């Protein structure tokens, strides 16, 4: 297990591994939005919570598409499936590695990007906490989508299609928490709901994902 975690992290930091690219994508989304909607600070600050959450979500999603596909193509997945570690554990570990390599940097960088979008400063702690609670669920749900689409040649977009609806609750509560934080309202309730969703996801999805992998390997 540890070996798998270390390998995935090492691969992420190697050439072409994609470490930091999630961050770059996040930055790019945050830059494109003002280009699209115009530079007025007052409007940007109103949509900032939503855009930040959507940006984090897309960055997470896009770095996921080949989570298992690479292992599938080079045959590692066949070999992992016959190795003495439960596939459920393998899925969980790979999702964890993904979160460390992508989700965590997003959380850390989010306040900075919040500044670009004129996010009110009293909302920043809520942004941090809600991302910290929410991104593990994003990684795990994405791993599930990646497991389902692993055998497909152009899984990327199909993956988005499958996974994005699953992201809706996390996104809703996350963005709501930040918006309430920005408005100085009580933001605990959405955060609690979000935490519940994350826990549920972490507990159940590894089994679904491992089952999907087994089916795809057949």
């Amino acid at each position, binding site marked *: 297990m540890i*070996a798998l975690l270390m*390998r995935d992290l090492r691969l992420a930091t190697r050439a072409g591994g994609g470490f930091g690219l999630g961050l770059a994508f996040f930055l790019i989304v945050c830059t494109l939005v003002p280009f699209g909607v115009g530079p007025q600070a007052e409007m940007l600050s109103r949509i900032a919570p939503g855009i930040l959450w959507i940006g984090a979500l897309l960055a997470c999603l896009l770095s996921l598409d080949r989570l298992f596909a690479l292992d599938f193509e080079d*045959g*590692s997945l066949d070999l*992992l499936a*016959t190795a*003495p*570690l439960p596939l459920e554990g393998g899925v969980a570990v790979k999702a964890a590695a993904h979160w460390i390599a992508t989700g965590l940097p997003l959380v850390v960088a989010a306040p900075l990007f919040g500044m670009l979008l004129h996010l009110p400063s009293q909302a920043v702690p809520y942004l941090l906490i809600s991302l910290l609670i929410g991104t593990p669920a994003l990684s795990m749900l994405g791993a599930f989508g990646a497991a389902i689409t692993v055998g497909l040649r152009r899984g990327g977009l199909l993956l988005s299609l499958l996974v994005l609806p699953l992201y809706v609750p996390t996104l809703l509560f996350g963005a709501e928490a930040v918006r309430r934080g920005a408005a100085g309202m009580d933001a605990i309730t959405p955060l609690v709901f979000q935490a519940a969703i994350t826990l549920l996801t972490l507990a159940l999805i590894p089994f679904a994902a491992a089952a999907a992998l087994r089916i795809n*390997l*057949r």
Partner: protein
Amino acid sequence: MSLLAVHDLAVARGGMRTVEGVSFALDAGQALILRGPNGIGKTTLLRTVAGLQPAVSGRIEAAPDAIAYAAHADGLKTALTVTENLRFWAQVFGRTEITPAIEAMNLRDLTQRPAGTLSAGQKRRLGLARLLVTGRPVWVLDEPTVSLDADSVALFATVVRAHLGQGGAALMATHIDLGLPEAEVLDLTPLRASTASKDVKPAGFNEAFA
């Protein structure tokens, strides 16, 4: 008791049976070579034995965690070096020692090279070295000597012999000579699932229409 026993096995690919009535047993120290024309179902059979897909009918008996499978693809990460690749697989199988495998497959000069920069045959050698670090008794190999030169094939034969000598077993599919005259050969040609006559037995969904 044998390490691996297969009784009257039928396997299917893409919803159609490929071979049926396959039976054999591998004891410690035995090697069995599967032969048969292209497309008869060797790869399918090996994947079934390795547990990657379910059998249509028949029985596979093997100790749990006895089988190490090596397919066409070698499961190498091109960005990791030879050592890192091997060490990873060793750790997955709960072992630590990789030097013997490196020595055995003559990879000493290449240890620090990223796997992506190896030639076809060097990659294959690394893929075979992976088998050694699993420490599993039953090797299930699909065309193991593809792309290997004569020296490496001889090396491979030596390694397999040593594995058999230590009480292991090997099941291999191949079209070419592996340099293992002592191995038994099972020709799958007569076991091709019959489709011409009335006893068509398609798998799964189609079973209902049979």
